[in-house]
């Protein structure tokens, strides 16, 4: 099977499954599981092809760029697809029992619409990571946004609906900024194809403005400080599996596009000043998000603010990967951190969902003794917290370690200070939650029962987050395929 077939399966399977899940609502659960299986196989196959033969491209409709649209799979795309598939499979499993835990017609309605929306979300993500055409990326961004907003609104509460509407307004206006930027790029360069843009290597005022527009829109969608305000209420008020999808996957798509634009399409425009601005916003996100997380009364809000902070780490990649010497080390570190965060954050939100089910609320100070009720979930939360803080041997540690070494190697020690502070704050808010969970209680509360698959998937993802640290050399090798930056990976941490 060629890579074209793998790519086609990756995009068409969830799309058709979404349509069928809408036409035959009863088949929703099976369609999701089937899709997860097919996508898993397709991603594995594509990964093998990319490892063996390098960057895979396919010209859709047989027309070469710039007239046609190109699908492209390099190391970065495959890593994003793998992360998406892992989380997608976990959510597909978790949600089999999540909605049925509540017995009423409204829950049934929510489940019936969850499956097609979830599958549309998956389609959008797969299409996004495989596309090498900036206008096509606009369409995938819109599909992603609509699915995300509607999934959030499924919760039905007033807080969720208000958060969804705010998210929708941000998403739509951001998309329009992006679209205008694409138009200016086309006007200047005559193409919207990423490799062609990279080959042209142009500069000019129109491109500066275009890139500013596109970046503004994408930053809002990726919830980078200071345009992050929509995220905490949205991620906190969504149903648990949706929160996981939003934090782990949806906000990463726009970040990926930013990487493609700045590192591949217009690298000449990424001056050191611009890179430092990205880093500064990332640092602000880390500090602002972590400090806010510390003071949140509700568990889901804590986790949501933690997402704001962790996204800040990703933007540290810009100042650290732009240079030649430490470039690839920071690149792979940042992206490993992305994957680690996806697994850990999903585990955390699923755990929060379990706690919400069992206890009926998620107020942290009232969660005393929840360990006795949900030992597996709290353990999963702890493991995920390990990865978030960056304790070895987790993948969170691997990513942060690489970023720290890159910062030291380039003498940008100020990012080191921010990262260390961020880890300390993360430790503080994780321990805060665990402290409440482990307190002794006099009267044990009677919980609602939790299906084992719900606890199981949370645990599995948390374990992955911890264990995948050992896979980091392999991940780095994957990322080398088609990477826009080069450089050694010095795991010894030597400071010149």
């Amino acid at each position, binding site marked *: 099977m060629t890579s074209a077939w793998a790519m086609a399966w990756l995009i068409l399977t969830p799309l058709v499954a979404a349509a069928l899940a809408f036409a035959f609502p009863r088949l929703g659960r099976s369609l999701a599981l089937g899709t997860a299986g097919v996508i898993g196989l397709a991603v594995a196959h594509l990964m093998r092809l990319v490892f063996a033969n390098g960057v895979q491209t396919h010209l859709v409709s047989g027309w070469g760029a710039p007239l046609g649209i190109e699908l492209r799979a390099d190391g970065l795309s495959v890593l994003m697809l793998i992360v998406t598939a892992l989380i997608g499979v976990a959510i597909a499993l978790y949600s089999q029992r999540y909605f049925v835990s509540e017995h009423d017609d409204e829950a049934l309605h929510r489940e019936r619409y969850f499956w097609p929306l979830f599958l549309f979300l998956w389609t959008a993500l797969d299409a996004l990571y495989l596309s090498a055409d900036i*206008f096509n990326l606009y369409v995938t961004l819109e599909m992603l946004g609509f699915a995300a907003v509607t999934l959030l609104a499924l919760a039905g509460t*007033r807080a969720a609906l*208000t958060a969804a*509407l705010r998210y929708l307004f941000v998403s739509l206006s951001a998309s*329009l900024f992006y679209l205008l930027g694409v*138009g200016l790029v*086309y*006007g200047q360069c005559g193409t919207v194809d990423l490799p062609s843009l990279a080959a042209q290597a142009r500069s000019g005022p129109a491109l500066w403005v275009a890139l500013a527009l596109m970046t503004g829109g994408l930053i809002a969608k990726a919830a980078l400080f200071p345009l992050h305000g929509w995220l905490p209420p949205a991620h906190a008020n969504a149903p648990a599996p949706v929160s996981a999808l939003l934090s782990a996957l949806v906000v990463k798509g726009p970040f990926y596009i930013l990487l493609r634009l700045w590192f591949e399409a217009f690298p000449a425009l990424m001056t050191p000043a611009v890179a430092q601005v990205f880093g500064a916003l990332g640092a602000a996100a880390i500090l602002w998000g972590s400090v806010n997380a510390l003071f949140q009364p509700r568990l889901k809000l804590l986790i949501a603010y933690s997402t704001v902070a962790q996204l800040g780490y990703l933007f540290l990649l810009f100042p650290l990967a732009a240079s030649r010497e430490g470039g690839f080390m920071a690149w792979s570190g940042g992206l490993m951190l992305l994957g680690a965060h996806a697994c850990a954050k999903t585990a955390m939100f699923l755990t929060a969902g379990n706690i919400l089910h069992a206890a009926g609320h998620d107020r942290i100070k009232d969660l005393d003794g929840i360990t006795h009720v949900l030992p597996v979930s709290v353990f999963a939360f702890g493991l995920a917290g390990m990865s978030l803080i960056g304790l070895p041997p987790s993948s969170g540690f691997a990513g942060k370690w690489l970023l720290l070494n890159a910062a030291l190697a380039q003498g940008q020690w100020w990012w080191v200070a921010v990262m260390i502070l961020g880890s300390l704050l993360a430790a503080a808010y994780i321990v805060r939650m665990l402290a409440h969970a482990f307190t002794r209680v006099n009267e044990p509360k009677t919980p609602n029962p939790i299906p084992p698959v719900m606890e199981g998937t949370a645990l599995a993802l948390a374990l992955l987050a911890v264990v995948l640290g050992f896979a980091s050399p392999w991940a780095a090798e994957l990322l080398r395929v088609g990477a826009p930056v080069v450089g050694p990976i010095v795991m010894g941490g030597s400071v010149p």
Partner: protein
Amino acid sequence: MVIVSTPSTGDPHTMPDAGYRIYALAGVALFAIGFYSLLVQAHLLRRIMALNVMGSGVFLVYIALGAQTPGPIPDPVPHAMVLTGIVVSVCATGLALALVDRVQAAAGDAEPGEDA
């Protein structure tokens, strides 16, 4: 600001070289007006309309870009992109309206007090 058209050679149907610019600038103005209204208006329906105005501005810029061709036929690629954009815009409006209705039903009015 050079928006005066310079005559091109040959075909009288051709858009003069820089004549498309006035339309692109109009699109830019619409985009800015829409953006301003989106941030300033409190009424949710007006915000949706502001988004539509922004979208129309973007589409106008695309069409203007497609007009600067040497022959009588404009560049079809921006036209196709605008068609796609219009469809997506209609979908967005439909979704936004349904969501606004749910929010209003839950809250009781159309002015949430906080801005987006």
